[in-house]
């Protein structure tokens, strides 16, 4: 059979392609399975959970675990659910993100455009800082904050998140600004801009893409943080992750798996929401070499 090739090339479904789709499907199921188990478990009552059919859909929908996880579950000695933790997390995340992103943008701008003496040294220092595991610095930082009198306070935990966020954020801002045409900066200098004016009127309006990436990284990073929140936040400002741990790790009584599941889903809703509305930008952030757990 002779077909004269003309126009668009026809697509063929090859074995390889079918194999690839199967692989993708299996991967998707593998990663979605835990979420499925969490959601259905949170909708069962304890009797059904004890029946141990973990993959079965609930016979009868019961929603009581959700409000319980939110407002009445016991975290240690208090029984107010996750609600206080949620607001603590917001109080920690919002200022930390604003301060760290703002300062890093200025740092990156200075490093990229105002080639001051030693700029390369500071750039190298940032690179180094971005790759030191922060567990190493927890104890010294604790002693410093204690001496400053801000240990176990809200400003204390905000300061810690700002410090740990800045090296990597400075890097991604600096790399983004270095990719902008230098002529723009020169033109702005001739037009009479100084350090601050050029930043405010010329650079910031062009920074939207990288700022979104930086905010996503910081929001998810700070919201998901457990260690720093546990160590630095103090009893009154415990973030949601720490309270979640307290709900799940019960030492006495019955483990209420449905409440645990609801609480876990509630805690991960914010990062999940951020991923969903910003998937495209998040991938960009990863492509920019800024992966942070």
């Amino acid at each position: 059979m002779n077909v004269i090739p003309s126009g668009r090339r026809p697509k063929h479904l090859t074995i390889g392609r079918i194999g690839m789709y199967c692989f993708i499907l299996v991967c998707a199921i593998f990663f979605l399975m835990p979420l499925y188990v969490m959601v259905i478990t949170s909708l069962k009552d304890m009797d059904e959970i004890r029946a141990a059919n973990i993959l079965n859909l609930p016979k009868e929908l019961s929603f009581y675990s959700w409000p319980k996880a939110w407002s009445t579950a016991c975290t240690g000695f208090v029984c107010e659910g996750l609600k206080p933790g949620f607001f603590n997390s917001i109080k920690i995340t919002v200022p930390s993100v604003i301060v760290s992103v703002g300062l890093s943008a200025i740092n990156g701008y200075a490093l990229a455009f105002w080639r001051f003496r030693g700029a390369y040294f500071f750039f190298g220092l940032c690179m180094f800082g971005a790759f030191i595991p922060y567990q190493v610095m927890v104890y010294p930082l604790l002693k410093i904050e204690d001496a400053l009198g801000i240990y176990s306070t809200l400003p204390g935990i905000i300061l810690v998140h700002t410090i740990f966020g800045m090296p990597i954020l400075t890097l991604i801002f600096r790399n983004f600004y270095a990719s902008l045409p230098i002529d723009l900066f020169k033109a702005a200098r001739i037009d009479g801009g100084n350090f601050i004016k050029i930043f405010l009127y010329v650079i910031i309006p062009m920074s939207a893409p990288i700022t979104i990436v930086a905010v996503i990284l910081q929001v998810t990073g700070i919201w998901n943080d457990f260690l720093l929140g546990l160590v630095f936040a103090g009893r009154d400002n415990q973030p949601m992750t720490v309270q979640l741990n307290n709900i799940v790790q019960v030492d006495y009584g019955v483990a209420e798996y449905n409440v645990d599941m609801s609480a876990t889903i509630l805690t991960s809703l914010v990062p999940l929401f951020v991923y969903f509305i910003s998937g495209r930008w998040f991938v960009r952030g990863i492509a920019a070499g800024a992966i942070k757990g």
Partner: protein
Amino acid sequence: MKNSVEVKNISFSYGKTEILNDLSLDIKEGEFMVLLGPSGCGKTTLLNCIAGLLDLSDGQIWIEDDNVTWKEPKDRHIGMVFQSYALYPSMTVEKNLSFGLRMVGTAKKIIDDKIEKASNLLQINELLKRKPSQLSGGQRQRVAIGRALVRDAKVFLFDEPLSNLDAKLRAELRYEIKKLHRDLSNTMIYVTHDQIEAMTLADRISVMKDGLIQQLDTPKQIYNKPANLFVAGFIGSPSMNFLNAKFDKSNQNIIVGNKQIDISKYENINNLIDDQKVVFGIRPENINIEKNENSILSNVELVEPMGADTLVWTSIEGTPISIRLEGSSNYNLNDEINISFDINKSSIFDNKSEERI
């Protein structure tokens, strides 16, 4: 006439690489000065030094009788136009034009007047509300020129402003820049590697290579009396033909292989010494196809019709030679031709120093 810009013995280096060394250049008021040279010759660096975007390692820059060596770019009364346009992408054309004025807190009414004047001059009134991304390359460059205009700059600096445009637009804007200079008569310093732009626009051209000024003169002088081999080869398209030769004083000849060319009509023949090794340079349009006692017999090897002209290629002793003839002339491959040289329009360079004799 008084000098508008004076560059006094400046040096500039990037780390250990020296780009400019002890370079001096005076630019007269209202003059159109073109800095011409191949990439990496230091012309853009020199322009950036004049603008104050780079710090000198030595020397002084004076603009309008004012030592601006340590002054910020904004205090130098300059306007600059970049190859990449460098328009602020988030601002409309109007905001782009007014940015510099707004930075120094100029009154709204004065800003509006100046924008109107500049946009009339450059025919960009229609575009004022648009963003740079909605403009074509030619329109963008007009706006960039307008940005320099509204600032009432005393000196305009152009950094290869037409290099990103296609050939047709380039010719169009070249014409407009020349007209602008005629109407404003500001001092303009223009960096380019395009010799046609340099020839057409400049009052004087400064040909640069390796951070040194090779020749500083009017376009005519540079074209007709290039100071050295580099300038001769860089200026002119198609470029000058060169023949390695030896001077024979007794016969007033130069000898190329086993051919002889009579150069008794050369203006500086008395400066040549017997047996001196020279490079004989002649432009394609100064070679004629005619038979006389000095003509050399040769064959047509290639014909390039260019419309207005026809370029005929032949060779003398193995060196390719191009001859520029009228567009109507008709030669075919392998035709025998007699070529003769306009000696008083030729240039003879010393083989070693490469300087014109």
